[in-house]
């Protein structure tokens, strides 16, 4: 069973539009990470959230972890073609040494 679900699965937006990607877990998250993957390439760390209610921003990307630490959202403001790629949330949900990724969200930004 999939423990980290992302929605939507794919997203196509016009350049300049805002968008939100969600990551939901059935269990409490021991830290939630957001990564970006360009097609066929490696994973780029975006940010990590640890505390319930925490919110972090980097350039035009903001991520938030809800109070119960079971859902996170990633928001991109004024999207650009450089934002295109696959966004992955990742977390350790078992308190051990397993780190799982979500199902991924493919983002296309149309110039």
């Amino acid at each position, binding site marked *: 069973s999939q423990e980290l679900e992302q929605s939507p699965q794919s997203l196509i937006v016009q350049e300049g539009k805002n968008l939100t990607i969600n990551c939901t877990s059935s269990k409490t998250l021991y830290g939630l990470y957001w990564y970006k993957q360009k097609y066929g390439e*490696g994973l780029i760390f975006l940010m990590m959230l640890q505390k319930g209610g925490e919110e972090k921003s980097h350039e035009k990307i903001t991520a938030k972890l809800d109070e119960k630490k079971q859902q996170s959202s990633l928001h991109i403001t004024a999207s650009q073609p450089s934002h295109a790629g696959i966004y992955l949330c990742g977390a350790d949900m078992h308190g051990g*040494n397993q780190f799982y*990724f979500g*199902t991924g969200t493919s983002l296309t930004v149309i110039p």
Partner: protein
Amino acid sequence: EPEVTQTPSHQVTQMGQEVILRCVPISNHLYFYWYRQILGQKVEFLVSFYNNEISEKSEIFDDQFSVERPDGSNFTLKIRSTKLEDSAMYFCASTLWTPGTGELFFGEGSRLTVL
């Protein structure tokens, strides 16, 4: 900036052959991971390694897989007898702390093609 390096970047092999994928984690890191991504699919956890032994492994990590840290710097993934379905991108990662407390650093990946 320190980085995780992986070799080879691409390997083509015949079905049934043994393959070793190599990773050099960041030097002071303590936790090491291998992930697999079949083309167009999600990134899947294979195994985690700490203190010179496997700490967790997934159902994918069956007897044909093994990991080793032979010399204190390299971290290898061996696939004993490759199958067509082993074709994927394999990512190595390392972190200084346990997951949830620090960034997991990833290598650029090794693409394995099994013919």
